[in-house]
């Protein structure tokens, strides 16, 4: 059973510029209202969008620090954004590898994808620590992985038979 329900013809807005200011505004509002005083929040942390930049496909990716999580976020920045309903899964390719994101839909942000790095984020004893870690995560995300010797491909006959690909 797949949770993904394609939305035929659904128009998804595109972020022409850096979404960081809106992200901060929206999540700061959530922090002050729905998430206020929840024990799962780390009171040392503030809401901050870290290192948002364009991906190779023209979308926006960066890290979002909130008192309840440090997540990677992916937002539509160009056409070709997958039309997936909230709760579906989608894999995004970055220079450092492939990551599974969960689709989210927040009224004020529209469709975006998230990949959890730290949640709850109680291990950070200061906002600075969380911010630095988020920054390092974005840098590592967009960095090529350390070169590994290429493994020889599995024999093509297996691939042909769909056994080893």
């Amino acid at each position: 059973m797949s949770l993904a329900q394609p939305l035929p013809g659904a128009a998804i807005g595109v972020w022409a510029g850096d979404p960081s200011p809106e992200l901060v505004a929206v999540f700061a509002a959530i922090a002050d209202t729905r998430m206020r005083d929840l024990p799962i929040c780390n009171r040392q942390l503030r809401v901050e969008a870290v290192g948002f930049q364009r991906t190779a496909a023209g979308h926006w990716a960066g890290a979002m620090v909130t008192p309840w999580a440090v997540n990677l976020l992916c937002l539509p920045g160009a056409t070709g954004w997958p039309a997936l309903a909230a709760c579906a899964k989608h894999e995004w390719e970055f220079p450092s590898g492939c990551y599974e994101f969960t689709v989210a839909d927040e009224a004020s942000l529209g469709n975006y994808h998230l990949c959890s790095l730290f949640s709850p984020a109680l291990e950070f004893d200061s906002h600075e620590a969380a911010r630095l870690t988020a920054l390092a995560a974005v840098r590592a995300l967009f960095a090529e992985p350390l070169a590994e010797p290429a493994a020889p491909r599995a024999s093509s006959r297996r691939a042909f038979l769909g056994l080893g690909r």
Partner: protein
Amino acid sequence: MTETFYEVLRRQGITRRSFLKFCSLTATSLGLGTSAAPTIAHALENKPRTPVLWLHGLECTCCSESFIRSAHPLTKDVVLSMLSLDYDDTLMAAAGHQAEAILDEVKKKYKGNYIVAVEGNPPLNEDGMFCIQGGRPFVEKLRETCADAKAIISWGACASYGCVQAAKPNPTRATPVHKVITGKPIINVPGCPPIAEVMTGVVTYMLTFDRIPELDRQGRPKMFYGQRIHDKCYRRGHFDAGQFAEAWDDEGARKGYCLYKMGCKGPTTYNACSSMRWNGGVSWPVQSGHGCIGCSEDGFWDKGSFYDRVTSITPFGAESNADSIGQAAAGTVGAAIAAHAAVTALARARQSNAHGQPEKQGENQ
């Protein structure tokens, strides 16, 4: 000459085509990628098979129930027939003295070269009298059987942590296996029960590669227990947006909002349920509308009601990530430490069990 895994399969009437399919699917479910399939096939064709003895202490048999319902292709034919050939008092045909004789025989014949899988745990009070098998305390049988084993698998919350029989006040002093057996590699596979594909994955990994999978500090295989339920939960977007169900059957519950306020233990529980799911990938607790009860965490019976909101999360306690990413990040603010924490978290996020979902069985019959 001991026969190989493959020879046993052939004898069971398994076709080579099905065997290769099994290897391929096992490789992906272990997160090794399909390129590892030939390695698995080669190992199973050439290595003498490793006997597995499956012991039962104080338990409810839900681990066995989970295991034999694995939707993983061929599991019931393959792995299970391998196990029951040796010793599993729930599943084997032998009984009485004949059954107990198998234990001695395997112990002698495969000294230092067999795996003991333990379901349940030994009670230690009253010299172990709360669990008697074959006329003697289970703890004695456990110690003797493990003495010459190569490695031990602790199935489920009982063997790994103690589970309900060890809940306060623990009248029988039910004790997890690793506190009774020392000096042997022990793999904890917690859960009540563990996911079937996780169980078969661990067994197949050990039989194939002849080594134990990489473990975290709590002795759990990292490939299946590296992430919190919360990290891969499909309702995660609702959590991040502060959208919670506040009561059963309220508007939020109907909309499928996050169940944290209804007591979901997903944020503190390490397991693969949210990515592998259950019953062959059909569903899992949160998808059915109930919060995670944290059954794969130490002492989950003693942490209050299943419906109490998680209020105390000790970042460095039992729930802390065994990779101690948090500890590194918490120490001092240093670029190197932050970078290490970040890279470790990214590596964890890259691990995806999404491909590990078992395929439908019909295709492989």
